């Protein structure tokens, strides 16, 4: 997948590179969203692209989330490759209908006559005092929506490769960018490359227990694994990368090997991705599991503003460590 030499880049820079390469390569690619033009986006992901590609292909929009997604879908029906930015994932509620009833069903309900290859980039996740409307993990809102794809990178290299793969892909894709990862750095290969969708990444091999994690929780899991290694617990960490439809094969193979599973996801506990994974693991690895699956998640609450409160409800390394300890008992 990636042959070219790698440089150190932030997650944001990796995303910007991907957008730049996609705009350069395919005239059908264009971007739209609030303040993505001259300003370069609320988190700087589109910085420099307006100047380079002009306002026709890097389009500032009014504060009209439904129209943003509608525009993306309509143009995608015409063969364009829109990359829409919804500033905060929390605002997807306003365009839920467009995503769920339009984009996700477009190919199906007209029996293949249209495609809706849109990419909706959005900043999600908590931990910075953003409060109830700027901090949510929203993948749980969309898990029961066949036709939709959810992609969620954890590293700068994957941010770039998965974004390029998403733009190439013919399906509607919700591309989640966890705000706490924007400033992390990592090796990022130069030039154009894609990282396959629907393929989980084994972020760390291990034999005693499998932790399946997404986005920021991958890093928390790796930190937990490093800590527990000292105690002789050898943890395998799987970065799911594509949340829907996900790579059950890699997950199940790992759990069959280790016999123990922890799923780690920042969203609230009930009805989220962690439950989906726990169900599938519990059913498919029924005879292999040595302990019940553990879900490490946010608590079942909205996200409070004050940092002490927020810290209380969001999962971190400590919670992953505890989860692992529980399945090791």
């Amino acid at each position: 997948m990636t042959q070219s030499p790698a440089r150190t880049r932030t997650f944001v820079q990796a995303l910007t590179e991907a957008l730049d390469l996609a705009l350069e390569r395919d005239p059908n690619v264009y971007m739209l969203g609030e303040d993505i033009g001259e300003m370069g986006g609320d988190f700087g992901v589109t910085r420099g692209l307006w100047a380079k590609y002009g306002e026709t292909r890097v389009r500032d929009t009014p504060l009209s989330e439904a129209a943003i997604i509608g525009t993306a879908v309509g143009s995608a029906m015409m063969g364009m490759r829109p990359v829409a930015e919804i500033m905060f994932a929390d605002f997807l509620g306003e365009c839920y209908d467009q995503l769920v009833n339009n984009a996700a069903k477009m190919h199906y309900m007209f029996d293949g006559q249209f495609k809706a290859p849109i990419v909706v980039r959005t900043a999600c996740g908590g931990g910075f005092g953003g409060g109830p409307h700027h901090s949510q993990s929203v993948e749980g809102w969309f898990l029961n929506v066949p036709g939709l794809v959810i992609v969620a990178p954890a590293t700068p290299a994957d941010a770039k490769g998965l974004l390029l793969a998403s733009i190439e892909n013919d399906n509607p894709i919700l591309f989640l960018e966890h705000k706490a990862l924007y400033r992390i750095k990592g090796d990022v290969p130069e030039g154009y490359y894609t990282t396959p969708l629907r393929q989980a990444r084994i972020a760390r091999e291990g034999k005693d227990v499998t932790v399946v994690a997404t986005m920021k929780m991958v890093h928390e899991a790796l930190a937990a694994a490093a800590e527990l290694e000292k105690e002789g617990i050898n943890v395998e960490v799987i970065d799911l990368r594509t949340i829907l439809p996900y790579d059950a094969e890699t997950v199940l193979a790992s759990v069959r090997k280790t016999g123990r599973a922890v799923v780690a996801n920042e969203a609230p506990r009930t009805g989220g991705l962690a439950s989906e994974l726990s169900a599938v693991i519990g059913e498919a690895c029924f005879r292999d599991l040595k302990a019940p699956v553990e879900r490490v998640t946010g608590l079942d609450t909205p996200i409070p503003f004050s940092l002490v409160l927020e810290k209380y409800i969001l999962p971190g390394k400590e919670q992953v460590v505890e989860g692992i300890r529980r399945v090791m008992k």
Partner: protein
Amino acid sequence: MTLDIETLVDLYRDMWLIRAFEFGLEREFKKGNVPGMLHTGVGQEATQAALAAHLHATDAFFPDHRCHGINALAQEKHQGDGERIMAELFGRATGVSGGKGGSLHSANPEVGNFGDNAVEGSYMATVLGVALAYQMRRQPNVACCIIGDGTVGRGEFHESLNMAAIWKLPVLYALVNNGYAISMPVGKGHASADIVDLARGYGMPCVVVDGNDIELAYAEVQKAVDYIRGGNGPYFLEFKTWRWQGLFSGEFRPAEEVRYWKEERDPLKLARAKIIENSALTADDVDRIEAEVKAEVEGWIDYAKQSPMPEPAKATANVYVGWTVEN
């Protein structure tokens, strides 16, 4: 008479096709041959025929729930197989959407039919993207969004008009004001019974059209599409018309109103009288046209009925492009 007689007769044929289609369909629906729900466009034929007449196969239109007629006209005009719209309504494999869509999701991009969305009004947002693609590719095409007066309640009305205006997108808003949204009179559901009043602030041309007069409707649509193809941005047409279909549960509108629209303002009656008055065609000639069209539509109904049902397992096809769903 502003229209030449050939065009008028063609339009009459189109209108008659719409009515025959809807009446035939309704009959079959009542017999239980058509699943789901049914809304018909009877009474609104002039509006629909005028739009269909000016839209090219390379244009795009989003038909609403009363637009079987436009769908059939476009299908027949550009691909010669209007029966595939009928088949879709019967849920057959030969339908334009393979039976997956039905009344509310019959599409065919090859003829410019971008499909209804049964979440009324959501395609007011989608139409922007189609129009944007035309604009970015410098194609002189029109993206037409057909919506009812009730649908104007949706917030997307505002988002759409605003974005079309600021980006000067080639969108034709064809607002079909038939006086009611299910049971809600337009003047009770909206701050103004004239929807143009809500549209004017966006700075695009806003024109009220008698939607039951095919000549006027044809001329106004012509003006609108010319303006849009000229790169001047969006255009808003409000067609005043009336639908014959009441509620599922029956008629609820005042008897005099019903009489007035059905007897004095029937677009077909009006056009028929004009034709007979202004051409060599006699009442018999027109009857013959009507009979021809009706026979054709009945043929479509037979086709639909004789078409096979879709393969059940096709139900899992086309969820994703290129990926199969494991279940």
